[in-house]
């Protein structure tokens, strides 16, 4: 378990014991890991860091409303099939042979889920991002794939995973996931990081930043999250801001610099107003 933590740290991902444990168990038990938490706390990063650490492929399935099996699993390459038939029109092959030819693997468009199952070399990391944005029907379909890691294509037959992929699901809790899916997965919750952890993250990801500045910046971010804004900035925003400050060669957070860079972490006009009035109040 410490091993995993170190492995992730080498990927410049600051993991705590909770994440390391969850990942370890997910690999040891072969169960998918469901990661929940507010936006921008690095849920997606977990999968990326894991793939890098294991030196394996990351296959990502971004969920959205209306995502269906054809876009997630497989599809027949219809124009290619058609052209193939056209070319073979004068060949002596029988109709059955032609049909067998166009329903071969060469005409199959593999979408992320099928890709993850048919990966030959080693088990890939399959990231199913923002599962809460997909429809309930898709969730049910996913459940089926995740339980046996096999897919049946009527024309070809059943394809079974050669290596069980490491599955990471993320959710922003924009809707309730089904109990069945939750039960099938290990669960981990990532919250906004503490001051120390955030500071550690900033220093690791933006090494060029000034020590004092990074401290001030994280403190401002921590305070910002308690202001009751409509879009609470995550760690991603902190890093954007830190990078912006480095690019501007800023050494302190004065009013001018703040005005120039506030757009890095506050993306809503009303929020900016709230932030400014709160700042005046503390000054």
């Amino acid at each position: 378990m410490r091993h995993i933590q170190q492995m992730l740290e080498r990927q410049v991902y600051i993991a705590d014991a909770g994440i390391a444990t969850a990942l370890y168990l997910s690999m040891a038990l072969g169960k998918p890991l469901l990661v929940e938490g507010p936006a921008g706390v690095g849920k997606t990063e977990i999968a990326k860091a894991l793939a890098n650490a294991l030196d394996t492929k990351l296959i990502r399935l971004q969920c959205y409303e209306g995502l269906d099996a054809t876009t997630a699993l497989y599809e027949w390459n219809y124009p290619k099939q058609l052209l193939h038939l056209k070319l073979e029109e004068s060949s002596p092959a029988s109709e059955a042979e032609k049909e067998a030819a166009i329903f071969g693997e060469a005409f199959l468009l593999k979408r992320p889920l099928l890709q993850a199952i048919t990966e030959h070399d080693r088990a890939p990391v399959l990231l199913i991002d923002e599962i809460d944005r997909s429809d309930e029907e898709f969730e049910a379909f996913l459940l089926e794939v995740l339980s046996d890691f096999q897919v049946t294509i009527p024309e070809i037959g059943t394809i079974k995973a050669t290596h069980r992929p490491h599955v990471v699901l993320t959710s922003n809790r924009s809707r309730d996931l089904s109990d069945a899916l939750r039960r099938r997965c290990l669960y981990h919750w990532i919250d906004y990081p503490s001051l120390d952890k955030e500071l550690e993250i900033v220093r690791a990801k933006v090494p060029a930043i000034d020590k004092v500045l990074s401290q001030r910046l994280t403190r401002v971010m921590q305070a910002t999250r308690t202001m009751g804004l409509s879009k609470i900035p995550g760690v991603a925003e902190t890093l954007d801001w830190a990078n912006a400050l480095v690019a501007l060669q800023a050494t302190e957070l004065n009013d001018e610099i703040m005005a120039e860079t506030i757009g890095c972490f506050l993306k809503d006009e009303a929020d900016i107003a709230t932030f400014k009035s709160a700042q005046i109040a503390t000054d």
Partner: protein
Amino acid sequence: MEIESVVTFCRALRERGLSVTPAEVVTAATVLQVIDTSDRDEVFLSLRSVLTTSVDDFPVFEELFETFWNRSPRKLVERDSGTTLRARNISQAKGLAFFLEHWSASVRAGAEPVKVPGASDTDSRAQKDFTDFSHEELEQISQLARRIVKRLASKPSRRWQPVARGHRVNLRRSLRLSLKTGGELIDLAYRRRRAKRTKLVVICDVSGSMDMYSRLLLQFVYGLQNSFAKVESFVFATTLSRITGELKNKTYRRALDRLASNVQGWSGGTRIGASLANFNAQWLRRIDKRTVIIILSDGWDTGEPKQLTHALSKLKERAGRVVWLNPLLGNSTYQPLTRGMQAALPFINVFAPAHDLASLRALEPHLVL
């Protein structure tokens, strides 16, 4: 660490409302074989990721784990058979009902939720204080509203619409496209069923007698408003005001602030008939058969019943459906005997309760035309 203690622990969790299935108990036992069971944190984190399914479960888990780890299985069993704990748990599980009780108690101490003061003509300009509202309750209501809206928007119509990607081939377009390639079908065009667009008009009573429900219902209206473009919302006590604009705000708090400062006569008396007549005069033109009208009111009217009858009959004529939600209907002894309610009943398609989350949930099928 013995298997028995894990099983006891899982049972204790189940008693406290976590859904721990036998499969998870097995997983938990397996987990203990692959980790260092002498490390408290490791056991804690591992079991937590197996036995919880949501961050909401964490507090209960943490509490019980403490007992579990300190190895007093007897104490654990004692605790989960204790009635006080269970009673507290049940009242927590009730959620909204529990909250409503508390809220009404804080608003008017000792009052029974169903004993509602009679409607009156006093036009109070009192500003409502919206601050003490449980965040979780609000979130649940908005989630429900979003779900309903999603269902409203996803009802397929009989008409087709061309789309870039889909399952059904649009033959006409495909043939047309094939002319480009000399009559060879290369690119396919697709079509799908157009989504049926139901429009919603919500008219919410915010008079004194509705006080304890209106905040809750407004949250619901807010949720509807912000996830669905075609919702018009109004509130009335003695006069009608349109609040569609006020509710279109990013946070509920901000929307409420604007409401409290812009809407007059909050918590005053009720004149349903006059308010609906007012609505008809200005908005009836916009109502068609694809519109569902939702009226949230307890039917305590101080105006003439005739006026209400007249206004409602006109409304019903034009609208696809008229739904009247009466929070008092949640009480089994309630009879819609008030003059206002009696006058309204013949013109209502659906007469349903709206006093808690469950009743709002039951509303879902009625809203789909």
